[in-house]
């Protein structure tokens, strides 16, 4: 508390401010002002974010896992200890198996993501910006949504065989859905107030789409992208368990055959880290492109 500010009790500086607050003493507004200057919001805001606060959950998980393994509470045949997993990972990196499989998996997910996003955005634009487009595509996409990608795999295998084309297609299909849904929803959800503004400014149709609709729909698209990136990794797991001869999923499958729990866990951790890293990347893009937004979290 500011020393120059007289305390309501006349004992400034002797009792810390939180104690006074719990005693029901109303402090002068300097405290609020200081908080406002520090960039925090009031009572209903989220408070000041910690730089690496999101690591708390994963850290707790590793902590309990370590305690469980060290105390023998977790059987190493069921789940190997964290340090055993780390040594296995080092071994896998030494003989090059992890990198080779990871590269192949990343290329698959990347290709699927690329095609899924391209098609998703294109169809969402056609369907979101024209009535006829909506009539043609929206119903079809909703039908596709009701069919799990897993259920389509037999058909995709018959069409594309069991090679890379099948794997990339399945990943792209799971990416397409969230991209389409979020982008289409955002395009159709542009506030009528901005449409009126564009009309009163006599904007051409092209200028309206470029300056109003597309930037207005960007937050929706980026939300879709976050779902899509996760969807790509999840689909990757599925396709790599099917007739694959390479990739992280193949590595896991092979380890199951030889009951190598540690290798399975390494594969799962790699999947988790990939998902986390790519979500992080999308959020980074979000923060850079949506600087104009003012939200609860900032």
């Amino acid at each position, binding site marked *: 508390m500011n020393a120059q500010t007289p305390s309501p009790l006349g004992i400034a500086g002797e009792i810390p401010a939180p104690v006074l607050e719990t005693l029901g003493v109303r402090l002068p507004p300097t405290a609020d002002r200081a908080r406002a200057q520090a960039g925090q919001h009031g009572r209903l805001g989220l408070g000041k974010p910690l730089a690496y606060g999101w690591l708390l959950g994963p850290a707790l998980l590793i902590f309990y896992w370590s305690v469980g393994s060290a105390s023998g509470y977790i059987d190493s045949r069921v789940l190997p200890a964290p340090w055993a997993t780390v040594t296995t990972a080092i071994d896998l990196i030494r003989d090059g198996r992890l990198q080779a499989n990871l590269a192949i998996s990343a290329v698959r997910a990347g290709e699927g993501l690329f095609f899924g996003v391209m098609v998703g955005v294109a169809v969402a634009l056609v369907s979101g910006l024209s009535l006829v487009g909506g009539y043609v595509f929206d119903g079809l996409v909703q039908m596709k949504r009701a069919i799990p990608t897993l259920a389509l795999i037999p058909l995709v295998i018959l069409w594309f065989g069991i090679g890379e084309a099948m794997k990339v297609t399945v990943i792209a299909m799971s990416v397409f859905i969230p991209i389409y849904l979020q982008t289409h929803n955002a395009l159709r959800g542009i506030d009528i*107030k901005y449409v*009126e503004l*564009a009309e009163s400014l*006599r904007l051409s149709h092209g200028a309206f789409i470029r300056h109003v609709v597309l*930037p207005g729909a960007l937050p929706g698209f980026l939300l879709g992208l976050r779902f899509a990136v996760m969807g790509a990794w999840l689909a990757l797991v599925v396709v790599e368990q099917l007739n694959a001869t390479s990739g992280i999923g193949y590595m896991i499958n092979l380890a199951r055959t030889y009951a190598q729990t540690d290798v399975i866990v390494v594969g799962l951790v790699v999947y988790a880290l990939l998902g986390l890293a790519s979500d992080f990347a999308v959020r980074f893009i979000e923060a850079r492109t949506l600087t*104009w*937004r003012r939200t609860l979290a900032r």
Partner: protein
Amino acid sequence: MTQAVRVRNLVRRFTLRGVLNGVDLDIAKGEFVALLGRSGSGKSTLLRALADLDQEATGSGETVVPERLSVIFQDARLLPWKRVLDNVVLGLNGPDARRRALTALDEVRLAGRERAWPHELSGGEQQRVALARSLSRDPELLLADEPFGALDALTRIRMHGLLRQLSIVHNPAVLLVTHDVDEAIELADRVVVLEDGRIVADIAIDLPPDAAARAARFIALRRQLLALLGVHDALTEAA
């Protein structure tokens, strides 16, 4: 043509909102007209009809408005994803678009805030950007739909001064929709009162230059207009 706006027997009907029952209105070039009316009297409907914003409305009648018209809404209606200057430039054509936008921002005393995001501005500043956006189009008719309704009293007084000054410089015909009687007398050359979709009064504002006489006339006009709006203010009655 000395006339900016000509409306004859305008009828508008909505399934949900207000109606117009045969409105006739003329606004001369450079004339400042305030449109007063209670909520639901149809004043916004008339403005939106002139701005051609309600295409779904059914109705009849004739409206003639200039080619260059500009609308100021109650909310500043800035695109949150565009910086201040880009909001003003939006829809401006020609090689000197940016220069015109910068001049307009200077006129509303926002020079130096070109790179700000709309959410970084106060309500009054946002409305000044909207004013700059309108003026940069050099409108022959400015349609303002309760533009100061959401501002605090002090900011509103400052905005009145700014709007009056800029309407003298640019000299557009102005139709200001408001429910604020003082604002109407303060700014307009003529006040039109709308009730149930009809114009019930059309009063020229003839404030004398002498301060004492001006204050007396102001109070008389205020009482007259409030009575037309169905408000009988004890204080005004006493004066």
